[in-house]
């Protein structure tokens, strides 16, 4: 289950009961979900939508990697994914490709799937 275009902070804990194997979050437009994730962790693997799919500004892969690595104790990162915050169709093609390279670099630095 992937949610996007906003946060799910208020229902974050209820999502654990949703019949899905993996939970995905837009953590850019839905950045308010992040504190809930930090506080409660996740019993299910997660898709961390930390790469902004709605803006061309390039993220620092190291900074993204650090944010993700810091969750190692409360999220099973080996079963989890790093992803854009939602679909990349509203970025210019060259910028969308760059975002995917940033995603790969950040994922490699953490050791999660991207």
């Amino acid at each position: 289950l992937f949610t996007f275009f906003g946060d799910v902070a208020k229902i974050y804990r209820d999502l654990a009961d949703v019949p899905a194997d993996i939970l995905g979050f837009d953590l850019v437009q839905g950045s308010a979900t992040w504190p809930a994730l930090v506080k409660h962790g996740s019993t299910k693997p997660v898709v961390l939508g930390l790469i902004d799919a709605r803006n061309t500004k390039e993220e620092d892969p190291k900074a993204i990697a650090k944010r993700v690595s810091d969750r190692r104790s409360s999220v099973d990162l080996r079963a989890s994914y790093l992803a854009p915050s939602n679909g990349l169709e509203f970025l210019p093609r060259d910028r969308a490709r760059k975002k995917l390279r940033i995603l790969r670099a950040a994922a490699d630095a953490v050791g999660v799937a991207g």
Partner: protein
Amino acid sequence: MKALLTTSVGSFPKPEYLTRARTKASKGELSPEELRVLEEKATTEWIRFQEEIGIDVLVDGEQYRGDMATYFAENLEGTEISGLVRSYGNRYYKKPVIVDELRRRGPISVEWFRFAQAQTKKPVKGMITGPYTMMDWSFDEYYGSREEACLAFAKLLHEEAVALESAGAKVIQVDEPALSSRFDELRLLVKAVGTVTKGLEASTVLHTCYGNYNEIFEYFNKLPVDQLDLEMSNSGLDLLDRFKREPLKKEIAFGVVDVHTHVIEPESLIRERIEKALTIFAPSKLFIDPDCGLKTRSVEEAKAKLKNMTAATQSVRKSHGWT
């Protein structure tokens, strides 16, 4: 008495010779000067047409613009233009990217306003893409805050509005189609539009379209402009009941033809729409226009819609003895 003045929202379709010329110019096969000659020709043709059919407040038709946000952005410092980005459906535009502090190089649309106004004695609107829409339709790699980016655009667009007024614009329209995209940011929109219109003596208009008007309705009377220009026909005039309960304290430009359909509304249907509008709005505060810019229609469709619109308006005026 002044009753049921007619106007247009802004853009008209480009004639085929201009579309072809723009393609050539984009490939470097036509000089900017050669393109300008054709843009002036097309602008003059649209001014003549509006005069012929009796429109009261004219527009230049935006024959020199591609996308409404990109046009302003490419004439500002601090921006770059990206590759093609999906706008909606299968329509794409080159979306602006804010890469540095926004600054105004000089007048953006003033020269075109002067050119258009010189072709007619009737008033021509000065047309500005609003600060909220400029921000919402741009990528931001510099400000990092939607409010900061929006207010930076607002400051520059105020300078443009003042320049338009100094050039003789009696009516200045701020286009904010993005108005209803984020209801939580309506206060920012009011502040930004207020920055643009502050101190202007010209009559000010805000155009918006295709949103959930019911969500933004309470802000209509707070918008710092003299007139609201609204798409009404595409949404089946469904706001009329609400306007009846909660009166608008401004002028309204009321869209009586749908710009998203090839169907040419017959005069009788447009007359009906105008009469319905007259049950709510005073004729002196009711302007008649299309829902939105007509650039997505063919030249023939746009002309037919405008002709029927003015004929229907004249007929309603006559039947009420307002001619």
